[in-house]
């Protein structure tokens, strides 16, 4: 990686932008500066044959004039003219916009936690292309050694560094940085004309600690086990949802239902249900922006509000929603630190940080052993076609593994699962203890009864 912008340089850009905007007549200003650097090597058809390096820096500025909000961004951060230009653009955008009578100002200054560890690793900055290439080879070799039918179709391994600085006219002033390294591999197994669906594994960590050999082996094992298949009959049955499937399903449904703006705008079935039982007793869910080593862990959110641990559902009872500053002020509350941003390119919007489903007591094997008749679901297709408001879904799961009397008996291709996620979450029968993070979700396996499975 090339030299990164230091804390004082990042904050200086933000402060300069805020000063310029105030001088040009903005009544309130917020500047958000981001840097991202990523190095990556790619695998295609079992070969390491491509590399990429991305350096992306930019600043986004929000200004308020007469309660109307304008935003502008640029990715040129070493030129005073560029700052002048975006401040002018943000102000002209605010003037073109409409006053918002609910606007109660940007976030107020608050203390950030100290002592967050395991989020930045200097070693990740130092990882060279040679090391990435070596790890990529280890991952591919581990996959193809599992069986000669295995093809490592696509994969990558890469390191990333990011930092952000936020300054606003209320005195908020924050800087944070982080690192991560990730490797992933997609494999399939091919035997004559028979091709399995793609199976996938990955490892991601904020510290320089990943296991490419494990990733290669696990992806390959799943693929090989999906070669021999039996058809599954249409039935209503028990399903085990792994983290991949849960992340896919929940991020298009449950994640929306707990956002305060969805609730305020009548788009959430949870509206007016605080204190009521909304899902199974077995589920306790936090949004935890401070989760140790979490992929979304950091000091503050996209408005400079401190990250926190927010209890959303406790033993099935709805406790709280996720707020940014705007939605919180509308209800006279404080932000829960859930204003998410797509770097410098976007204004903040409400989203989960690390969405944490608290684990239960059952290990992997025990989860399967508890199921008399059911299927194990890893990968879904079409979860993004779920109804984001009602929670209805109708998706394909492939491959799946059928379970009889506590054991996996065979794999199957293509079943369809249909239902309503909020009903599904009421029918949770128990929760595993095998917690891991996939995307924004940290969760164990979850076992659900009475799901409609459409087979042959």
């Amino acid at each position, binding site marked *: 990686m090339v030299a990164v912008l230091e804390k004082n340089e990042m904050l200086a850009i933000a402060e300069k932008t805020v000063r310029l905007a105030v001088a040009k007549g903005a009544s309130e200003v917020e500047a958000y500066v981001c840097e991202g650097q990523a190095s990556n090597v790619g695998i295609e058809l079992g070969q390491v044959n491509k590399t990429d390096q991305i350096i*992306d820096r930019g600043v986004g500025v929000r200004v308020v004039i007469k309660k109307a909000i304008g935003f502008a961004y640029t990715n040129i951060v070493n030129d005073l003219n560029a700052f002048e230009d975006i401040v002018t653009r943000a102000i002209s955008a605010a003037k073109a916009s409409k006053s918002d009578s609910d606007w109660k100002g940007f976030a107020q200054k608050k203390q950030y936690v100290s002592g967050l560890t395991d989020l930045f690793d200097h070693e990740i900055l130092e990882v060279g292309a040679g090391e990435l290439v070596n790890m990529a080879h280890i991952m591919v070799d581990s996959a193809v050694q599992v069986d000669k039918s295995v093809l490592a179709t696509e994969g990558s391994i890469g390191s990333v560094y990011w930092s952000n600085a936020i300054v606003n006219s209320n005195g908020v002033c924050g800087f944070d940085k982080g690192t991560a390294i990730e490797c992933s591999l997609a494999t*399939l197994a091919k035997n004559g004309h028979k091709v399995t669906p793609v199976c996938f594994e990955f490892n991601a960590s904020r510290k320089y600690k990943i296991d490419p050999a494990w990733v290669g082996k696990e992806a390959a094992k799943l693929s090989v086990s999906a070669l021999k298949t039996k058809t599954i009959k249409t039935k209503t049955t028990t399903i085990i949802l792994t983290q991949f499937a849960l992340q896919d399903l929940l991020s298009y449904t449950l994640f929306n239902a707990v956002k305060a703006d969805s609730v305020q705008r009548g*788009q959430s079935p949870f509206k007016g249900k605080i204190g009521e039982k909304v899902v199974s007793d077995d589920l306790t869910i936090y949004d935890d922006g401070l989760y140790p080593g979490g992929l979304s862990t950091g000091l503050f959110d996209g408005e400079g509000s401190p990250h926190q641990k927010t209890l959303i559902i406790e033993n099935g009872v709805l406790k709280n929603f996720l707020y940014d500053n705007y939605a919180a002020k509308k209800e006279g509350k404080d932000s829960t630190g859930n204003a998410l941003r797509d770097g410098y390119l976007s204004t903040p919007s409400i989203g989960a940080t690390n969405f944490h489903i608290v684990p239960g007591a059952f290990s992997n094997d025990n989860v399967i052993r508890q199921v008399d008749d059911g299927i194990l679901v890893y990968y879904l297709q079409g979860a993004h076609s779920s109804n984001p408001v009602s929670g209805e879904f109708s998706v394909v799961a492939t491959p799946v593994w059928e379970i009889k009397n506590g054991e996996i008996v065979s794999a199957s291709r293509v079943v369809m699962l249909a239902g309503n996620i909020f009903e599904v979450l009421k029918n949770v029968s128990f929760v595993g203890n095998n917690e891991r993070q996939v995307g924004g979700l940290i969760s164990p396996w979850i076992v659900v009864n009475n799901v409609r499975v459409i087979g042959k």
Partner: protein
Amino acid sequence: MQQALLKVIETATQKHGAHYAEARAQKLYKTMFTLKEERVEAAKQGIENGVALRVLVNGAWGFASVGSFENDILLSTVSNACTMAKTASQQLKNPIKLAAANTITDHVEVKAKKNPADIAMEDKIKNISEINKTIQQYDKRIKSCTVDYLDLTGSTIFVNSEGTNIQQDKMFVWSKITASAESCGVFTFSREEIGSTFGYEVFDTQPPQEIGEAVAKRAVAQLSAKTLKGGKTPVVLGSNVVGVFVHEAFGHLAEADLALSGGVLFNTLGEKIGSDLVTFYDDGTVPGAFGSFKYDDEGVPAQKTLLIKDGVVTSLMHNRETASKFNVNPTGNARAEDFRVEPIIRMRNTYMAPRDYEFEELLEGIKSGYFFKSFRGGQTNIDGTFQVGIQEGYEIVNGEISVPVRNASISGNTLETLLKVDAVGKNFAIDSGRCGKGQTAFIGDGGPHIRLSEVVVGGSA
């Protein structure tokens, strides 16, 4: 600018051992806003300037992107890219080669009747607010509506070490409209997208009130829809669903990179995999369509590519790398979302050719089935499994459209399902959309209405 980029490329080939090098620069402006009910969440303007550099060293790709036009930075970036590519190439068994492409010098100018850059943001907000107004006034059961608006203007430059030098002006207008409705604990959701590489005049052909009404009407109608029973059944697909079906159930599999990764269309050239009625194109030349452009991001002219004719596979979609592997000409499908990422094989406007059935004729003879009019999402697996979600559907009873159904999707395997196309309509439409494959691409897809003699429908009743 061109001169500076040419210098960078020359350095890559002459000093750092690159066999091929290209630079792709962009200077783009975006105007955006989001409307939530009456509220303008924020009016936004963005500037995105940067350069993507790609080199081929000993048969491995090195790619680097940087948000700067400064000479020194570009020179050190290209040097890094060459070093990384060299490192990756060390154990390479099959070095990457590129199929030949013509050397092109061109400047593509945009000719819009209404260039969005010339329209004040205030006027855009006022105009688009009509969509929200229409939706909110449509029915009191409407709970929310969100409209995202984006337009982009500017230009890109592409130069490579073979002498191609193309400047293309860019312009598009895009909007996504969603609404939700609720009644007695039943929640519904409806969405549409509009996109055009013509100018702001797209809102003359698709007036805000009309769009708003269509979205609101669906959200309200779905309130009384019933859940459907899953299983195998005959279906009629509206052209909006056919577009996504073509895109998901065939298009992705015909992307040569996915075919090479063990996809089911590998080695199917010349094979009959669909019924005689199945003819698909991927076409980058449809005027104004959302997936149209003149040159792709490897400097190859966009074209109209015949993918499958009367059920027989005729071509895949290629970039220069896969064209070389298949020993064919590149088809102009290499696209990059922006300067931050490398070009990969993407669809443009993918559609099915119409035939001669009237809509009523498609329904005839279906005792019990479904008419799926509008989609919500879709996804493909390279083993040929596809899924298309439905946001608007109806029961068909004895050849007639009956009550609305909710929460449906269709799925199947491409190689089985294309054989089940047993009647194709004479109408034709292309819709605008976005496709995700790690990067987002703006695409068009469409076709006529069609009938599938059977497909698996997912339902929860």
